[in-house]
């Protein structure tokens, strides 16, 4: 199949050109935020705690998400990283697939996956309930659980 390469200086009338530009801008803006968010994420979860990754368990997450700050922080990483990553994967799919049906199938899979995981992750962060752990009062003694 012939691949049509447009003249680089041709006026952008094609539908989707604006979208492509916005995606390009989004990659850069989200990239800047992600550098700070993820270096912070690595420091707080892997580097600074005395036991590093070995300190991570349900109680660790419950302690962090007791604060709206970390809920928003992790929610921001979830949305920005997943859209940034999905758009990056879309770039690769567009570069390396030639068959149109395959490209469309892969790109659809990417965005459906992103949509489902953003929905899942957002629900997990916003509806998180530390009380599902019967031992919750050993690490959150002041927490009041219903029932």
């Amino acid at each position: 199949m012939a691949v049509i390469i447009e003249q680089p200086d041709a006026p952008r009338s094609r539908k989707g050109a604006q979208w492509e530009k916005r995606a390009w801008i989004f990659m850069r803006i989200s990239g800047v935020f992600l550098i700070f968010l993820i270096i912070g994420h690595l420091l707080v979860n892997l580097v600074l705690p005395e036991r590093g990754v070995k300190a991570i368990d349900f109680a660790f997450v419950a302690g962090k998400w007791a604060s709206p700050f970390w809920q928003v922080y992790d929610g921001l990483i979830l949305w920005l990283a997943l859209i940034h990553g999905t758009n990056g994967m879309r770039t690769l799919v567009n570069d390396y697939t030639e068959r149109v049906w395959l490209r469309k199938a892969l790109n659809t899979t990417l965005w459906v996956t992103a949509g489902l995981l953003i929905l899942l992750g957002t629900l997990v962060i916003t509806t998180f309930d530390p009380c599902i752990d019967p031992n919750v009062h050993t690490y959150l003694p002041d927490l009041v659980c219903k029932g």
Partner: protein
Amino acid sequence: MAKLPAGTLYRGKLGMWSWVLHRITGVGIYFFLLVHILDTALVRVSAEAYNSVVASYKTDIIGVAEIGLVGAILFHGFNGIRIMLIDFWRKGAKYQNVMFWIVLVIWAVLMAGFIPRQLMHIFGA
């Protein structure tokens, strides 16, 4: 005889390899992100479910693999800054080669800090 071209921003030499590395690290981070969202979602199921899955992140092999993950993230992030400087800074394209080496130096310094810390966490008492 005409000299061979010295390579452009993305074709040949360092510019191209930085681009290749940016893609490979990006794909790796993407697939880790998918797994990481799913494992974290287990906090909504039960403490035992989450704890038992997160325990795999604390094993020797995965603990060492996390060094690779952090290395990929740091390279992708700092090379991303380099890409933005090429895009937006007037002299960015001119200095893209030098900036690649600066990215590698920053990366090496941060990894020199992270690797012993991680090994201590994984293999330390």
